[in-house]
Structures are given as structure tokens and as C-alpha cells.
């Protein structure tokens, strides 16, 4: 835990069961440590999720008397002690493993950290999660923390030529809890040491994931200059883009992006579909597109890309709203 960086964001949510169940307010650190340690209160034989990010008092105020949260449209300050990369490959776990290895090796080399400074997991289904400590990046809480994390992760993924799931950087995203059981495969989200990740086959990793295993959360490594520089650059890019968008709108320069047309025509792959749908909606909003028309234009492509009706509605609404906010 990094009290200095994340002290103002102690709260998260937990979902016991599928993502349709209620989000309940939790002490983010306590819940994460308990799942890592297979604490009996965590009940790791059940499907469970923790929020990918953590939040402050304004989030807590969204809980009702039973601890259930209304997370819709929350846009306050957020933070995470771990910056996550999600590598999913439908029907090609070997490829996901190769990419997770590539990513982990890159992070260790670029930031000159030890093998055990990273948290690496087999997700229990179709991919791997790799986490790097926020302390490396000197990344503190902010309203844009999730966007900066996303931009940083995208930059790293592009640099080494892998694709990552960009949907996990939604501010109120649920992320499968460590050691919890995947309902479809019956396998657990299992922590892997660097040697296990690099040396074991997919079959061997799946065998490991048949049982959960307790582990201690690694101590937070100190700041690394290269990591802090990468974070700063990602943050500056976010700011520049926001300024450019504002300027573009102020000057009345509006274009229908190629990506918007491509999305309507061809949809998107699973790792990128949330982002592309969001962007397409935001682009349509630049034209003053009526809400109903945006939904008519984008819903079918979103559904074809495999998103649920509620996910499609949310991405479109958030995209439309994003642009009316002028960010």
C-alpha cells in the first residue's frame, strides 16, 4: 500500500458474483490484500471483482445505507496502487502468454525493476493481467488518473507491438479479483511468478490455476526516473489533446473521423471495442448529432462487436457526454 500517493482514495467496490450484482463499498486495500492472501472472508471459490481504480469521499457518498453503490457517470478523483495491463486473446491463449511475457520483460528492463516488483496473473479464462506499481511512476490521484494510465499503457503496448484491452481503464471498471474463481472455466485468477510466466506452458499454467494460492502483495518499489518521465509524458499528451479538442470546437473545425466510419461499417475487435464505440459517439457529438440518431447509428455495430446492450448504451452516452463537456 502506498499511503502517501493514494491516501485520499481509500475506497473501492467489490462485486460478489457476476457483474450484474450490486457494487458494494469496500476498503480497497483490505479487500485486495484479502483476495491475494486467500482470506476466508474473500471466499475465493466464488466469482468476484474489485474496482480497477479506487476513490475518495465523493465516491463513498454514493453508497446507500446497505453499502450498495451507484457508480453511474461517476467522474471524480481516482487512483490505483497498480497500473494494470489486460491481455486477452479469444481462442489463442498461447498468443496471450507470448504477449504477456513480452510486456513483463519490457517493463522490467525499461524501469530497471526486480522480477517480483510486478504482479502477473493468469486471469482464469482467456488472458493475463500484468500490474506495475504506481509508486514507480510517482502517479498520484487525479480526475484524469484513469486516462493517463490508459495512455501510458497504450504507449507501451504500441512500442512493443502487442494489443491490450483498452476497456479496462474505464473509471468504474470492475476487475476480476485475485484468486477468485472464473464461473465458466472453474479456474482461478492465479498469480504467476516471473519464472512461471516465462517458463511454463499454457497447459501447465491452467493446471496451476485449478487451485488458488495465497501470496503477499509485493512491497511498493521506489520511484524510477524513466517511469516518472513516461507518466508525465502521458499526462501531458492527455492535456494537449483536451486543449486541441477545445480549440477545434471553438474554431468550428469538425470532421467525421475515419475510425467512426470504420466502426459503423466493420465494428471492432474485442480489445478495442469500448474505446472505438466511445470515440465514434464523441465524434458524432461534435456535429451536434441528436442522441437518438447516435444510438441508431452505433448500436448495431456495438452489438455486433460483442458488447451487451447496456455496455453499448453506456459507451454511446459517455461518448456523447464527453464531448459536450469540452474535455
Amino acid at each position, binding site marked *: 500500500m502506498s499511503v502517501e500517493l493514494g491516501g485520499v482514495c481509500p475506497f473501492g467496490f467489490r462485486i460478489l458474483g457476476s457483474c450484474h450484482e*450490486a457494487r458494494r463499498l*469496500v*476498503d480497497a486495500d483490505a479487500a485486495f490484500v*484479502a483476495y491475494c492472501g486467500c482470506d476466508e472472508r474473500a471466499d475465493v471459490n466464488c466469482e468476484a471483482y474489485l474496482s480497477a481504480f479506487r476513490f475518495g469521499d465523493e465516491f463513498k457518498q454514493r453508497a446507500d*445505507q*446497505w453499502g450498495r453503490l451507484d457508480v453511474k457517470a461517476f467522474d471524480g478523483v481516482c487512483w490505483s496502487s497498480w497500473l494494470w495491463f489486460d491481455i486477452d486473446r479469444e481462442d489463442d491463449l498461447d498468443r496471450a502468454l507470448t504477449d504477456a511475457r513480452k510486456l513483463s520483460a519490457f517493463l522490467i528492463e525499461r524501469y530497471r525493476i526486480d522480477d517480483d516488483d510486478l504482479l502477473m496473473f493468469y486471469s482464469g479464462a482467456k488472458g493475463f493481467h500484468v500490474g506495475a506499481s504506481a509508486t514507480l511512476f510517482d502517479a498520484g490521484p487525479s480526475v484524469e488518473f484513469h486516462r493517463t494510465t490508459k495512455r501510458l499503457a497504450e504507449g507501451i503496448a504500441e512500442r512493443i507491438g502487442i494489443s491490450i484491452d483498452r476497456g479496462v481503464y474505464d473509471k468504474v471498471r470492475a476487475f476480476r479479483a485475485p484468486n477468485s474463481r472464473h464461473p465458466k472455466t472453474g479456474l482461478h485468477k492465479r498469480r504467476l511468478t516471473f519464472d512461471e510466466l516465462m517458463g511454463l506452458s499454457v497447459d501447465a499454467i491452467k493446471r496451476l490455476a485449478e487451485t488458488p494460492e495465497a501470496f503477499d502483495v509485493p512491497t511498493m518499489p521506489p520511484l524510477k526516473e524513466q517511469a516518472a518521465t513516461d507518466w508525465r509524458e502521458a499526462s501531458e499528451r492527455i492535456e494537449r489533446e483536451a486543449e486541441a479538442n477545445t480549440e477545434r470546437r471553438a474554431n468550428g473545425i469538425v470532421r467525421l473521423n475515419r475510425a467512426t466510419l470504420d466502426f459503423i461499417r466493420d465494428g471492432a475487435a474485442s480489445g478495442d471495442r469500448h474505446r472505438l464505440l466511445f470515440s465514434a459517439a464523441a465524434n458524432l457529438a461534435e456535429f451536434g448529432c441528436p442522441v437518438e440518431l447516435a444510438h441508431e447509428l452505433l448500436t448495431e455495430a456495438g452489438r455486433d462487436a460483442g458488447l451487451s446492450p447496456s455496455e453499448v448504451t453506456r459507451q454511446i452516452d459517455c461518448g456523447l457526454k464527453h464531448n459536450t463537456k469540452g474535455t
Partner: protein
Amino acid sequence: MSTTKLTDILAGNGGFFNNWDQVKAAGDFGPLPPGTYVCHIAKSELSESRVKQTPCYTLTFRVIEGDFASRLLWHEIWLTELAKPQAKRDFDKLGITDPKNQLKQSLPPDCVRCRVKAVIHKDDNGNEHNKVKSFDVIGIDTPKADPFSPGGSTEALSGGPSS
């Protein structure tokens, strides 16, 4: 016509159909059989019907006992002039005597235990769905705080449905 051969796609598993006669077919994930189920009210919320936007209070029941544990049933309490007597009947069962104020808050989840009578209705297209015919409150289970709720409380939450 497909040119894919069964022997190709089952390569390495030629005995796949050997015990076919002994395999028990899985059931479809269809509606619950008509009957009476012990449930918790998992969720209660004000909403509107999809087509005509008729206001209602929707109860989501989660089966907690028997073979169908964890399956869900839904019941709409319609908030219209015509359905007022039925709404009053259902709200009385839930201890909601002052709906104007009490409906501002939802019921505590997984706390109100009910006996729910469910039937199957079929529409003109032959699609089947469950309908809650009636329900009775048979007990109140104390809701537990999340073990990781801020403050670390594992005690039962205070409060409960008005009854």
C-alpha cells in the same frame, strides 16, 4: 453444402460418440417450472415499462433454496390508478405503508425472505416466461455488511425494512 468432415474436426477424439446413448441431455436455461419458491428480494427499484413507460416498482426475487437456487424472478407492482388496489396489497405485505416516502429508498438486498408462487405464461409467438402470481413475506434475515466495508465491520447492518 459443407465439405468439412467429421473425422477431421474430431481428430484425436474418434471415440467421441461411443457412449452417446448414455449421455444425459442438458436442459435449456428456460423459465422456472411452475411452483412455489423461497426467495430473497435481491433488488427493488422504481422503473417504467419498456413499451408504454408505465410507472412501476420492480421486485427482483432470487431463489435461495432447492435445485433452482440463485435463479431470478421479477414482479412489477404497477403504479397506475387501475392497479392501485393490487399495489396496496403488495406494499402492505412489504411493510410499505407510506409509499410516498418509503419508496424513495429501496429495500435492503437479500434480507426480505418470501414465498413466491410462479407460473409460466406463453405469448403469441410461443415464447415462455415466468410470472409471479403472488408472494408472501415469511421472514426477515439480517443483512450482513461486506466484510471489507470501510471500518472493517463484520457486524450485521442496522436497520431493515419497515414492517
